[in-house]
Protein backbone atom coordinates (compact mmCIF):
# COMPACT_ATOMS: atom_id res chain seq x y z
CA UNK A 1 0.00 0.00 0.00
CA UNK A 2 2.86 2.40 0.85
CA UNK A 3 4.39 1.86 -2.59
CA UNK A 4 1.05 2.54 -4.21
CA UNK A 5 0.65 5.80 -2.26
CA UNK A 6 4.18 6.89 -3.21
CA UNK A 7 3.64 6.07 -6.89
CA UNK A 8 0.35 7.90 -6.92
CA UNK A 9 1.86 10.96 -5.20
CA UNK A 10 4.69 11.08 -7.75
CA UNK A 11 2.20 11.14 -10.62
CA UNK A 12 0.37 14.05 -8.99
CA UNK A 13 3.39 16.39 -8.97
CA UNK A 14 3.74 16.88 -12.77
CA UNK A 15 -0.04 17.25 -13.08
CA UNK A 16 -0.04 20.02 -10.46
CA UNK A 17 2.85 21.73 -12.28
CA UNK A 18 0.88 21.51 -15.53
CA UNK A 19 -2.18 22.95 -13.82
CA UNK A 20 -0.16 25.91 -12.55
CA UNK A 21 1.28 26.45 -16.05
CA UNK A 22 -2.21 26.49 -17.57
CA UNK A 23 -3.53 28.90 -14.92
CA UNK A 24 -0.51 31.13 -15.55
CA UNK A 25 -1.12 30.97 -19.32
CA UNK A 26 -4.66 32.40 -19.04
CA UNK A 27 -3.41 35.98 -18.92
CA UNK A 28 -0.79 35.47 -21.63
CA UNK A 29 -2.89 33.96 -24.40
CA UNK A 30 -5.32 36.88 -24.38
CA UNK A 31 -5.23 38.32 -27.90
CA UNK A 32 -3.70 41.79 -27.86
CA UNK A 33 -2.13 43.51 -24.89
CA UNK A 34 -3.64 42.25 -21.61
CA UNK A 35 -2.65 45.46 -19.81
CA UNK A 36 -4.58 47.54 -22.36
CA UNK A 37 -7.57 45.22 -21.92
CA UNK A 38 -7.45 45.58 -18.15
CA UNK A 39 -6.80 49.33 -18.10
CA UNK A 40 -9.32 50.13 -20.83
CA UNK A 41 -8.75 51.60 -24.30
CA UNK A 42 -8.65 55.23 -23.13
CA UNK A 43 -6.24 54.78 -20.22
CA UNK A 44 -3.25 57.20 -20.27
CA UNK A 45 0.15 55.71 -21.12
CA UNK A 46 1.65 56.24 -17.64
CA UNK A 47 -1.22 54.28 -16.03
CA UNK A 48 -0.67 51.46 -18.53
CA UNK A 49 3.08 51.41 -17.81
CA UNK A 50 2.50 51.44 -14.05
CA UNK A 51 0.05 48.53 -14.31
CA UNK A 52 2.46 46.62 -16.54
CA UNK A 53 5.23 47.03 -13.97
CA UNK A 54 2.88 46.15 -11.11
CA UNK A 55 1.89 42.91 -12.84
CA UNK A 56 5.53 42.21 -13.71
CA UNK A 57 4.63 41.73 -17.36
CA UNK A 58 7.78 43.38 -18.72
CA UNK A 59 9.94 40.44 -17.59
CA UNK A 60 10.68 37.32 -19.72
CA UNK A 61 7.88 34.69 -19.63
CA UNK A 62 9.82 31.97 -17.80
CA UNK A 63 10.86 34.44 -15.09
CA UNK A 64 7.22 35.50 -14.70
CA UNK A 65 6.10 31.87 -14.42
CA UNK A 66 8.73 30.99 -11.83
CA UNK A 67 7.80 34.03 -9.79
CA UNK A 68 4.08 33.14 -10.10
CA UNK A 69 4.81 29.57 -8.96
CA UNK A 70 7.05 30.60 -6.05
CA UNK A 71 4.52 33.14 -4.81
CA UNK A 72 1.61 30.68 -5.25
CA UNK A 73 3.48 28.10 -3.14
CA UNK A 74 3.80 30.73 -0.42
CA UNK A 75 0.08 31.42 -0.59
CA UNK A 76 0.41 34.71 -2.49
CA UNK A 77 -1.73 34.86 -5.63
CA UNK A 78 -1.46 38.60 -6.15
CA UNK A 79 -4.11 41.27 -5.69
CA UNK A 80 -7.50 41.74 -7.29
CA UNK A 81 -7.42 44.48 -9.91
CA UNK A 82 -10.87 45.67 -8.87
CA UNK A 83 -11.03 45.45 -5.06
CA UNK A 84 -7.22 45.65 -4.50
CA UNK A 85 -7.66 42.93 -1.84
CA UNK A 86 -5.33 39.89 -1.87
CA UNK A 87 -6.74 37.18 -4.18
CA UNK A 88 -6.30 34.57 -1.44
CA UNK A 89 -8.52 36.61 0.91
CA UNK A 90 -11.17 37.00 -1.81
CA UNK A 91 -11.24 33.22 -2.29
CA UNK A 92 -11.02 32.29 1.40
CA UNK A 93 -14.04 34.43 2.32
CA UNK A 94 -16.16 32.75 -0.36
CA UNK A 95 -14.97 29.17 -0.04
CA UNK A 96 -17.18 28.23 2.98
CA UNK A 97 -20.31 29.06 0.95
CA UNK A 98 -19.19 26.79 -1.92
CA UNK A 99 -18.18 24.03 0.49
CA UNK A 100 -21.56 24.22 2.25
CA UNK A 101 -23.54 24.12 -1.01
CA UNK A 102 -21.47 21.26 -2.43
CA UNK A 103 -21.62 19.19 0.75
CA UNK A 104 -25.40 19.55 1.13
CA UNK A 105 -25.83 18.67 -2.58
CA UNK A 106 -23.70 15.56 -2.26
CA UNK A 107 -25.65 14.43 0.82
CA UNK A 108 -28.91 14.84 -1.12
CA UNK A 109 -27.43 13.01 -4.14
CA UNK A 110 -26.28 10.02 -2.07
CA UNK A 111 -29.48 9.90 0.03
CA UNK A 112 -31.64 9.76 -3.10
CA UNK A 113 -29.33 8.19 -5.70
CA UNK A 114 -28.30 5.03 -3.83
CA UNK A 115 -31.85 3.92 -2.79
CA UNK A 116 -33.16 4.75 -6.28
CA UNK A 117 -30.49 2.59 -7.95
CA UNK A 118 -31.03 -0.16 -5.37
CA UNK A 119 -34.80 -0.34 -5.93
CA UNK A 120 -34.32 -0.25 -9.73
CA UNK A 121 -31.92 -3.20 -9.56
CA UNK A 122 -34.04 -5.28 -7.19
CA UNK A 123 -37.21 -4.58 -9.19
CA UNK A 124 -35.49 -4.87 -12.56
CA UNK A 125 -37.67 -4.38 -15.66
CA UNK A 126 -40.62 -3.21 -13.54
CA UNK A 127 -42.32 0.17 -13.86
CA UNK A 128 -40.21 1.43 -10.92
CA UNK A 129 -37.04 0.58 -12.82
CA UNK A 130 -38.22 2.13 -16.10
CA UNK A 131 -39.43 5.30 -14.36
CA UNK A 132 -36.27 5.74 -12.30
CA UNK A 133 -33.95 5.18 -15.26
CA UNK A 134 -36.10 7.32 -17.57
CA UNK A 135 -35.98 10.17 -15.08
CA UNK A 136 -32.21 9.81 -14.64
CA UNK A 137 -31.59 9.84 -18.43
CA UNK A 138 -33.80 12.94 -18.72
CA UNK A 139 -31.94 14.65 -15.88
CA UNK A 140 -28.62 14.02 -17.60
CA UNK A 141 -29.96 15.71 -20.75
CA UNK A 142 -31.41 18.72 -18.94
CA UNK A 143 -29.49 22.00 -18.85
CA UNK A 144 -28.87 22.72 -15.17
CA UNK A 145 -29.56 26.45 -15.61
CA UNK A 146 -32.95 25.69 -17.12
CA UNK A 147 -33.81 23.30 -14.28
CA UNK A 148 -32.89 26.08 -11.84
CA UNK A 149 -35.08 28.62 -13.62
CA UNK A 150 -38.07 26.28 -13.72
CA UNK A 151 -37.56 25.53 -10.00
CA UNK A 152 -37.44 29.27 -9.22
CA UNK A 153 -40.55 29.84 -11.32
CA UNK A 154 -42.54 27.10 -9.58
CA UNK A 155 -41.29 27.09 -5.98
CA UNK A 156 -40.26 30.70 -5.45
CA UNK A 157 -42.37 32.89 -7.70
CA UNK A 158 -45.63 30.91 -7.79
CA UNK A 159 -45.72 28.93 -4.54
CA UNK A 160 -43.49 31.26 -2.51
CA UNK A 161 -41.94 28.38 -0.56
CA UNK A 162 -38.29 29.33 -1.01
CA UNK A 163 -36.40 32.58 -1.62
CA UNK A 164 -35.35 33.32 -5.22
CA UNK A 165 -31.65 33.73 -4.44
CA UNK A 166 -28.95 34.53 -1.92
CA UNK A 167 -27.51 32.92 1.19
CA UNK A 168 -28.70 33.66 4.71
CA UNK A 169 -26.64 32.22 7.51
CA UNK A 170 -25.62 28.63 8.18
CA UNK A 171 -27.67 25.67 6.96
CA UNK A 172 -28.81 24.63 10.46
CA UNK A 173 -30.76 27.87 10.90
CA UNK A 174 -34.27 28.03 9.42
CA UNK A 175 -33.57 30.93 7.09
CA UNK A 176 -30.27 29.45 5.96
CA UNK A 177 -32.00 26.12 5.26
CA UNK A 178 -34.74 27.79 3.19
CA UNK A 179 -32.10 29.56 1.08
CA UNK A 180 -30.05 26.45 0.36
CA UNK A 181 -32.88 24.10 -0.71
CA UNK A 182 -33.27 25.18 -4.35
CA UNK A 183 -29.56 25.64 -5.21
CA UNK A 184 -28.52 22.39 -3.53
CA UNK A 185 -31.27 20.33 -5.19
CA UNK A 186 -30.41 21.91 -8.56
CA UNK A 187 -26.75 21.09 -8.09
CA UNK A 188 -27.57 17.55 -6.93
CA UNK A 189 -29.72 16.53 -9.94
CA UNK A 190 -26.90 15.33 -12.22
CA UNK A 191 -25.18 13.52 -9.36
CA UNK A 192 -28.43 11.76 -8.38
CA UNK A 193 -28.75 10.48 -11.97
CA UNK A 194 -25.13 9.30 -12.15
CA UNK A 195 -25.13 7.68 -8.69
CA UNK A 196 -28.47 5.89 -9.23
CA UNK A 197 -27.38 4.48 -12.62
CA UNK A 198 -24.08 3.29 -11.19
CA UNK A 199 -25.68 1.73 -8.09
CA UNK A 200 -28.16 -0.07 -10.33
CA UNK A 201 -25.54 -1.54 -12.68
CA UNK A 202 -23.27 -2.41 -9.73
CA UNK A 203 -26.12 -4.16 -7.91
CA UNK A 204 -27.18 -6.07 -11.04
CA UNK A 205 -23.64 -7.33 -11.51
CA UNK A 206 -23.23 -8.36 -7.87
CA UNK A 207 -26.69 -9.94 -7.54
CA UNK A 208 -25.73 -12.51 -10.21
CA UNK A 209 -22.59 -13.66 -8.34
CA UNK A 210 -22.19 -17.13 -6.83
CA UNK A 211 -21.88 -15.94 -3.23
CA UNK A 212 -25.29 -14.26 -3.47
CA UNK A 213 -26.81 -17.50 -4.81
CA UNK A 214 -25.13 -19.34 -1.93
CA UNK A 215 -26.45 -16.85 0.62
CA UNK A 216 -29.96 -17.25 -0.74
CA UNK A 217 -29.62 -21.05 -0.81
CA UNK A 218 -28.56 -20.97 2.85
CA UNK A 219 -31.86 -19.25 3.59
CA UNK A 220 -30.51 -15.78 4.42
CA UNK A 221 -33.37 -13.25 4.45
CA UNK A 222 -33.69 -11.32 1.16
CA UNK A 223 -33.31 -7.96 2.93
CA UNK A 224 -29.96 -9.13 4.35
CA UNK A 225 -28.82 -10.53 0.99
CA UNK A 226 -29.54 -7.23 -0.74
CA UNK A 227 -28.67 -4.80 2.04
CA UNK A 228 -25.58 -6.49 3.43
CA UNK A 229 -24.08 -9.02 1.03
CA UNK A 230 -24.78 -7.25 -2.26
CA UNK A 231 -24.91 -3.53 -1.50
CA UNK A 232 -21.57 -3.49 0.31
CA UNK A 233 -19.76 -4.72 -2.79
CA UNK A 234 -21.86 -2.78 -5.28
CA UNK A 235 -21.05 0.46 -3.48
CA UNK A 236 -17.28 0.33 -4.07
CA UNK A 237 -17.44 2.02 -7.51
CA UNK A 238 -20.11 4.36 -6.14
CA UNK A 239 -17.64 5.62 -3.52
CA UNK A 240 -15.27 6.59 -6.32
CA UNK A 241 -17.91 8.44 -8.23
CA UNK A 242 -19.18 10.23 -5.14
CA UNK A 243 -15.63 11.44 -4.49
CA UNK A 244 -15.12 12.54 -8.09
CA UNK A 245 -18.50 14.25 -8.22
CA UNK A 246 -17.70 16.08 -4.99
CA UNK A 247 -14.50 17.42 -6.52
CA UNK A 248 -16.29 18.24 -9.73
CA UNK A 249 -19.08 20.13 -7.94
CA UNK A 250 -16.61 22.21 -5.95
CA UNK A 251 -15.52 23.73 -9.25
CA UNK A 252 -18.58 23.07 -11.34
CA UNK A 253 -21.04 24.97 -9.17
CA UNK A 254 -20.35 28.04 -11.33
CA UNK A 255 -23.76 28.02 -13.02
CA UNK A 256 -25.82 27.22 -9.93
CA UNK A 257 -24.01 29.83 -7.85
CA UNK A 258 -24.53 32.44 -10.56
CA UNK A 259 -28.26 31.79 -10.96
CA UNK A 260 -29.00 31.71 -7.24
CA UNK A 261 -26.58 34.56 -6.45
CA UNK A 262 -24.81 32.18 -4.05
CA UNK A 263 -21.70 34.00 -2.79
CA UNK A 264 -19.22 31.21 -3.53
CA UNK A 265 -16.00 30.71 -5.49
CA UNK A 266 -17.83 29.81 -8.74
CA UNK A 267 -19.67 33.12 -8.79
CA UNK A 268 -16.44 34.93 -7.94
CA UNK A 269 -14.79 33.24 -10.96
CA UNK A 270 -17.54 34.31 -13.34
CA UNK A 271 -17.69 37.88 -12.02
CA UNK A 272 -13.92 38.20 -12.32
CA UNK A 273 -13.96 36.85 -15.86
CA UNK A 274 -16.64 39.35 -16.90
CA UNK A 275 -14.66 42.16 -15.21
CA UNK A 276 -11.35 40.92 -16.68
CA UNK A 277 -9.90 40.64 -13.18
CA UNK A 278 -7.23 38.17 -14.30
CA UNK A 279 -5.37 37.56 -11.00
CA UNK A 280 -8.66 36.46 -9.37
CA UNK A 281 -9.51 34.25 -12.39
CA UNK A 282 -6.07 32.63 -12.13
CA UNK A 283 -6.53 32.12 -8.40
CA UNK A 284 -9.96 30.51 -8.76
CA UNK A 285 -8.85 28.25 -11.62
CA UNK A 286 -5.74 27.21 -9.72
CA UNK A 287 -7.63 26.52 -6.48
CA UNK A 288 -10.38 24.47 -8.12
CA UNK A 289 -7.98 22.40 -10.23
CA UNK A 290 -5.64 21.71 -7.31
CA UNK A 291 -8.62 20.68 -5.15
CA UNK A 292 -9.87 18.45 -7.95
CA UNK A 293 -6.46 16.75 -8.33
CA UNK A 294 -6.14 16.24 -4.57
CA UNK A 295 -9.66 14.83 -4.25
CA UNK A 296 -8.86 12.46 -7.14
CA UNK A 297 -5.79 11.37 -5.22
CA UNK A 298 -7.78 10.72 -2.04
CA UNK A 299 -10.43 8.80 -4.02
CA UNK A 300 -7.75 6.63 -5.66
CA UNK A 301 -6.19 5.84 -2.29
CA UNK A 302 -9.60 5.12 -0.78
CA UNK A 303 -10.42 2.84 -3.69
CA UNK A 304 -7.18 0.94 -3.28
CA UNK A 305 -7.92 0.54 0.41
CA UNK A 306 -11.46 -0.73 -0.24
CA UNK A 307 -10.47 -3.02 -3.11
CA UNK A 308 -6.98 -4.51 -2.58
CA UNK A 309 -6.84 -5.81 -6.17
CA UNK A 310 -6.25 -2.24 -7.41
CA UNK A 311 -2.92 -1.92 -5.56
CA UNK A 312 -1.36 -4.75 -7.50
CA UNK A 313 -2.60 -3.61 -10.89
Amino acid at each position, binding site marked *: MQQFILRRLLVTVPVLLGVSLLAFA*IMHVVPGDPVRLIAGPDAPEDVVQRLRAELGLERPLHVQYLSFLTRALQGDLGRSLRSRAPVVDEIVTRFPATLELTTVSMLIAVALGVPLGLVSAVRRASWVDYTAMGVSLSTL*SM*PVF*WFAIVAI*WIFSLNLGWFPVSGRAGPVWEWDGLRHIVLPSVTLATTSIAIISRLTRSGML*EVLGRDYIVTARAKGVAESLVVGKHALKNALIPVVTVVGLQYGFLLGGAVVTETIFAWPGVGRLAITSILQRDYPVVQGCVLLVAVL*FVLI*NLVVDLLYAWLDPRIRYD
Partner: protein
Amino acid sequence: MTDTWRRFTTHRLALAGLAVIAGFALLALFAPWVAPSDPIRQSLPDALRGPSLRFPLGTDEFGRCVLSRIIHGARLSLLVGVLATAIGASVGTSLGLAAGYFRRLDGWVMRAMDVLLAFPGILLAIAVMAALGPSLPNVMIAVGIRSIPSFARLTRGIVLSLKELEFVQGALALGAGHGRVLLGHILPNGVSPLLVFSSMQIATAILLAAILSFLGLGVQPPTPEWGKMVSDGRAHLLEAPHVSLFPGIAIFLTVMGFNCLGDGLRDALDPRLRARTTE
Protein backbone atom coordinates in the same frame (compact mmCIF):
# COMPACT_ATOMS: atom_id res chain seq x y z
CA MET B 1 -23.21 -5.14 -40.90
CA THR B 2 -26.77 -6.36 -41.48
CA ASP B 3 -26.89 -7.59 -37.87
CA THR B 4 -25.74 -4.20 -36.62
CA TRP B 5 -28.32 -2.44 -38.80
CA ARG B 6 -31.09 -4.74 -37.57
CA ARG B 7 -30.10 -4.20 -33.95
CA PHE B 8 -30.11 -0.44 -34.51
CA THR B 9 -33.46 -0.33 -36.32
CA THR B 10 -35.15 -2.36 -33.58
CA HIS B 11 -33.81 -0.08 -30.83
CA ARG B 12 -36.83 2.13 -30.20
CA LEU B 13 -35.04 4.68 -28.05
CA ALA B 14 -32.30 5.16 -30.65
CA LEU B 15 -34.84 5.61 -33.43
CA ALA B 16 -36.72 8.18 -31.35
CA GLY B 17 -33.43 10.00 -30.74
CA LEU B 18 -32.57 9.92 -34.43
CA ALA B 19 -36.04 11.24 -35.32
CA VAL B 20 -35.67 14.18 -32.91
CA ILE B 21 -32.21 15.04 -34.25
CA ALA B 22 -33.39 14.72 -37.86
CA GLY B 23 -36.36 16.98 -37.05
CA PHE B 24 -34.15 19.70 -35.59
CA ALA B 25 -31.62 19.29 -38.42
CA LEU B 26 -34.36 19.81 -41.02
CA LEU B 27 -35.67 22.84 -39.13
CA ALA B 28 -32.14 24.25 -39.02
CA LEU B 29 -31.55 23.59 -42.71
CA PHE B 30 -34.78 25.21 -43.88
CA ALA B 31 -34.99 27.81 -41.10
CA PRO B 32 -35.55 30.86 -43.35
CA TRP B 33 -38.53 29.15 -45.01
CA VAL B 34 -39.97 27.35 -41.96
CA ALA B 35 -39.73 30.12 -39.35
CA PRO B 36 -42.93 32.18 -39.21
CA SER B 37 -41.14 35.52 -38.59
CA ASP B 38 -37.76 37.23 -38.78
CA PRO B 39 -35.84 36.07 -35.65
CA ILE B 40 -34.02 39.40 -35.21
CA ARG B 41 -36.63 42.02 -36.14
CA GLN B 42 -37.89 43.80 -33.03
CA SER B 43 -41.49 44.89 -32.50
CA LEU B 44 -41.86 46.48 -29.07
CA PRO B 45 -45.69 46.68 -29.13
CA ASP B 46 -45.70 42.84 -29.31
CA ALA B 47 -43.26 42.39 -26.38
CA LEU B 48 -43.79 39.48 -23.96
CA ARG B 49 -46.98 38.17 -25.56
CA GLY B 50 -48.08 34.65 -24.68
CA PRO B 51 -48.50 31.87 -27.26
CA SER B 52 -51.06 32.73 -29.96
CA LEU B 53 -51.82 31.89 -33.60
CA ARG B 54 -49.54 34.68 -34.81
CA PHE B 55 -46.74 33.81 -32.39
CA PRO B 56 -47.14 30.05 -31.62
CA LEU B 57 -44.61 30.14 -28.73
CA GLY B 58 -45.11 33.80 -27.77
CA THR B 59 -42.65 36.71 -28.01
CA ASP B 60 -39.66 37.90 -25.99
CA GLU B 61 -38.99 41.28 -24.37
CA PHE B 62 -38.24 42.88 -27.76
CA GLY B 63 -41.35 41.43 -29.38
CA ARG B 64 -39.38 38.83 -31.36
CA CYS B 65 -41.08 35.52 -32.20
CA VAL B 66 -39.75 32.85 -29.79
CA LEU B 67 -40.53 29.97 -32.20
CA SER B 68 -38.61 31.64 -35.03
CA ARG B 69 -35.66 32.26 -32.74
CA ILE B 70 -35.71 28.62 -31.58
CA ILE B 71 -35.76 27.42 -35.21
CA HIS B 72 -32.85 29.68 -36.18
CA GLY B 73 -31.10 28.84 -32.90
CA ALA B 74 -31.13 25.16 -33.91
CA ARG B 75 -28.59 26.03 -36.63
CA LEU B 76 -26.15 27.38 -34.12
CA SER B 77 -26.59 24.69 -31.47
CA LEU B 78 -26.23 21.79 -33.91
CA LEU B 79 -23.29 23.47 -35.66
CA VAL B 80 -21.47 24.14 -32.39
CA GLY B 81 -22.26 20.62 -31.09
CA VAL B 82 -20.96 18.88 -34.22
CA LEU B 83 -17.96 21.11 -34.97
CA ALA B 84 -16.78 21.35 -31.35
CA THR B 85 -16.92 17.55 -31.13
CA ALA B 86 -15.08 17.31 -34.46
CA ILE B 87 -12.30 19.53 -33.05
CA GLY B 88 -12.07 17.45 -29.88
CA ALA B 89 -12.26 14.16 -31.80
CA SER B 90 -9.62 15.01 -34.41
CA VAL B 91 -7.07 16.40 -31.96
CA GLY B 92 -7.85 13.86 -29.21
CA THR B 93 -7.84 10.87 -31.55
CA SER B 94 -4.52 11.92 -33.13
CA LEU B 95 -2.94 12.33 -29.70
CA GLY B 96 -4.40 9.02 -28.52
CA LEU B 97 -3.12 7.20 -31.63
CA ALA B 98 0.36 8.63 -31.12
CA ALA B 99 0.39 7.92 -27.37
CA GLY B 100 -0.84 4.34 -27.73
CA TYR B 101 1.43 3.44 -30.64
CA PHE B 102 4.70 5.18 -29.82
CA ARG B 103 5.79 4.29 -26.28
CA ARG B 104 8.15 7.25 -26.05
CA LEU B 105 5.29 9.72 -26.52
CA ASP B 106 2.89 7.93 -24.20
CA GLY B 107 3.99 9.42 -20.87
CA TRP B 108 4.20 13.00 -22.16
CA VAL B 109 0.89 12.99 -23.99
CA MET B 110 -1.05 11.31 -21.21
CA ARG B 111 0.36 13.60 -18.49
CA ALA B 112 -0.71 16.59 -20.59
CA MET B 113 -4.18 15.03 -20.86
CA ASP B 114 -4.20 14.52 -17.06
CA VAL B 115 -3.61 18.27 -16.68
CA LEU B 116 -6.58 19.08 -18.90
CA LEU B 117 -8.70 16.54 -17.02
CA ALA B 118 -7.77 18.24 -13.75
CA PHE B 119 -10.12 21.08 -14.65
CA PRO B 120 -13.85 20.54 -14.28
CA GLY B 121 -15.23 20.76 -17.86
CA ILE B 122 -17.25 23.92 -17.33
CA LEU B 123 -14.40 25.78 -15.69
CA LEU B 124 -11.95 24.81 -18.44
CA ALA B 125 -14.33 26.05 -21.13
CA ILE B 126 -14.98 29.27 -19.19
CA ALA B 127 -11.25 29.86 -18.68
CA VAL B 128 -10.59 29.37 -22.41
CA MET B 129 -13.44 31.75 -23.28
CA ALA B 130 -12.05 34.28 -20.80
CA ALA B 131 -8.71 34.14 -22.57
CA LEU B 132 -9.99 34.10 -26.16
CA GLY B 133 -13.02 36.39 -25.84
CA PRO B 134 -16.64 35.71 -26.82
CA SER B 135 -17.28 34.64 -30.44
CA LEU B 136 -18.71 31.62 -32.26
CA PRO B 137 -15.39 30.04 -33.32
CA ASN B 138 -14.03 30.54 -29.80
CA VAL B 139 -17.06 28.75 -28.31
CA MET B 140 -16.29 25.79 -30.57
CA ILE B 141 -12.63 25.81 -29.55
CA ALA B 142 -13.44 26.12 -25.82
CA VAL B 143 -16.02 23.34 -25.95
CA GLY B 144 -13.81 21.21 -28.21
CA ILE B 145 -10.73 21.46 -25.97
CA ARG B 146 -12.73 20.04 -23.08
CA SER B 147 -13.31 16.77 -24.94
CA ILE B 148 -9.73 16.30 -26.22
CA PRO B 149 -8.46 14.32 -23.18
CA SER B 150 -11.46 11.97 -23.20
CA PHE B 151 -11.00 11.19 -26.91
CA ALA B 152 -7.24 10.75 -26.38
CA ARG B 153 -7.74 8.30 -23.50
CA LEU B 154 -10.34 6.29 -25.40
CA THR B 155 -8.22 6.08 -28.58
CA ARG B 156 -5.07 5.19 -26.64
CA GLY B 157 -6.93 2.31 -24.99
CA ILE B 158 -8.12 1.07 -28.38
CA VAL B 159 -4.62 1.23 -29.87
CA LEU B 160 -3.09 -0.60 -26.90
CA SER B 161 -5.63 -3.40 -27.21
CA LEU B 162 -5.17 -3.74 -30.98
CA LYS B 163 -1.49 -3.19 -31.66
CA GLU B 164 -0.32 -6.59 -30.40
CA LEU B 165 -2.93 -8.49 -32.44
CA GLU B 166 -1.87 -10.69 -35.38
CA PHE B 167 -3.30 -8.54 -38.16
CA VAL B 168 -1.32 -5.52 -37.02
CA GLN B 169 1.87 -7.50 -36.51
CA GLY B 170 1.26 -9.10 -39.90
CA ALA B 171 0.95 -5.72 -41.61
CA LEU B 172 4.19 -4.58 -39.97
CA ALA B 173 5.95 -7.80 -41.01
CA LEU B 174 4.85 -7.20 -44.60
CA GLY B 175 6.62 -3.85 -44.48
CA ALA B 176 3.73 -1.43 -43.93
CA GLY B 177 4.81 1.93 -42.49
CA HIS B 178 3.67 3.17 -39.09
CA GLY B 179 1.31 5.71 -40.66
CA ARG B 180 -0.36 3.05 -42.76
CA VAL B 181 -0.68 0.64 -39.84
CA LEU B 182 -2.20 3.35 -37.63
CA LEU B 183 -4.60 4.87 -40.13
CA GLY B 184 -5.29 1.86 -42.36
CA HIS B 185 -5.39 -1.01 -39.87
CA ILE B 186 -5.80 0.19 -36.28
CA LEU B 187 -8.09 3.21 -36.67
CA PRO B 188 -10.79 1.50 -38.81
CA ASN B 189 -11.09 -1.22 -36.14
CA GLY B 190 -11.63 1.33 -33.41
CA VAL B 191 -14.27 3.39 -35.22
CA SER B 192 -17.27 1.86 -33.37
CA PRO B 193 -16.43 3.05 -29.84
CA LEU B 194 -15.31 6.42 -31.20
CA LEU B 195 -18.61 6.84 -33.03
CA VAL B 196 -20.65 6.02 -29.93
CA PHE B 197 -18.55 8.36 -27.82
CA SER B 198 -18.83 11.16 -30.41
CA SER B 199 -22.62 10.98 -30.38
CA MET B 200 -22.66 11.39 -26.58
CA GLN B 201 -20.04 14.14 -26.79
CA ILE B 202 -22.21 16.16 -29.20
CA ALA B 203 -24.89 16.13 -26.49
CA THR B 204 -22.41 17.38 -23.90
CA ALA B 205 -21.04 19.99 -26.32
CA ILE B 206 -24.51 21.42 -26.99
CA LEU B 207 -25.15 21.65 -23.23
CA LEU B 208 -21.80 23.29 -22.56
CA ALA B 209 -22.18 25.82 -25.39
CA ALA B 210 -25.63 26.71 -24.01
CA ILE B 211 -24.09 27.20 -20.55
CA LEU B 212 -21.43 29.54 -21.97
CA SER B 213 -24.09 31.62 -23.74
CA PHE B 214 -26.24 31.60 -20.62
CA LEU B 215 -23.33 33.05 -18.64
CA GLY B 216 -22.82 35.74 -21.28
CA LEU B 217 -19.55 34.29 -22.57
CA GLY B 218 -20.84 32.66 -25.75
CA VAL B 219 -22.45 33.95 -28.90
CA GLN B 220 -23.37 37.61 -28.59
CA PRO B 221 -26.81 39.20 -29.20
CA PRO B 222 -28.87 39.57 -31.31
CA THR B 223 -27.91 36.13 -32.75
CA PRO B 224 -30.58 33.65 -31.59
CA GLU B 225 -28.97 31.07 -29.32
CA TRP B 226 -30.91 28.74 -27.02
CA GLY B 227 -28.83 29.24 -23.85
CA LYS B 228 -28.89 33.02 -24.25
CA MET B 229 -32.66 32.92 -24.82
CA VAL B 230 -33.20 31.07 -21.53
CA SER B 231 -30.98 33.64 -19.82
CA ASP B 232 -32.78 36.63 -21.37
CA GLY B 233 -36.16 35.29 -20.21
CA ARG B 234 -35.08 35.18 -16.55
CA ALA B 235 -35.98 38.82 -15.96
CA HIS B 236 -39.59 38.17 -17.04
CA LEU B 237 -40.21 34.79 -15.40
CA LEU B 238 -43.34 35.92 -13.57
CA GLU B 239 -45.22 37.58 -16.44
CA ALA B 240 -43.79 35.62 -19.39
CA PRO B 241 -42.28 32.26 -18.35
CA HIS B 242 -42.56 30.97 -21.95
CA VAL B 243 -39.54 33.08 -23.00
CA SER B 244 -37.21 30.87 -20.90
CA LEU B 245 -39.27 27.69 -20.90
CA PHE B 246 -39.43 26.83 -24.63
CA PRO B 247 -35.75 27.30 -25.59
CA GLY B 248 -34.88 25.11 -22.57
CA ILE B 249 -37.17 22.38 -23.90
CA ALA B 250 -35.42 22.63 -27.29
CA ILE B 251 -32.00 22.12 -25.63
CA PHE B 252 -33.36 19.23 -23.56
CA LEU B 253 -34.90 17.43 -26.58
CA THR B 254 -31.78 17.77 -28.75
CA VAL B 255 -29.41 16.63 -26.00
CA MET B 256 -31.72 13.74 -25.11
CA GLY B 257 -31.85 12.83 -28.83
CA PHE B 258 -28.05 12.54 -29.07
CA ASN B 259 -27.86 10.61 -25.77
CA CYS B 260 -30.49 8.10 -26.96
CA LEU B 261 -28.77 7.80 -30.34
CA GLY B 262 -25.47 7.13 -28.55
CA ASP B 263 -27.14 4.43 -26.41
CA GLY B 264 -28.61 2.81 -29.53
CA LEU B 265 -25.34 2.94 -31.47
CA ARG B 266 -23.52 1.36 -28.53
CA ASP B 267 -26.03 -1.46 -28.29
CA ALA B 268 -26.01 -2.03 -32.05
CA LEU B 269 -22.24 -1.88 -32.54
CA ASP B 270 -21.22 -3.76 -29.41
CA PRO B 271 -23.85 -6.32 -28.34
CA ARG B 272 -21.53 -7.67 -25.62
CA LEU B 273 -21.69 -4.33 -23.86
CA ARG B 274 -25.45 -4.40 -24.06
CA ALA B 275 -25.50 -7.82 -22.43
CA ARG B 276 -23.35 -6.45 -19.62
CA THR B 277 -25.33 -3.31 -18.97
CA THR B 278 -28.83 -4.72 -19.22
CA GLU B 279 -28.31 -8.06 -17.53
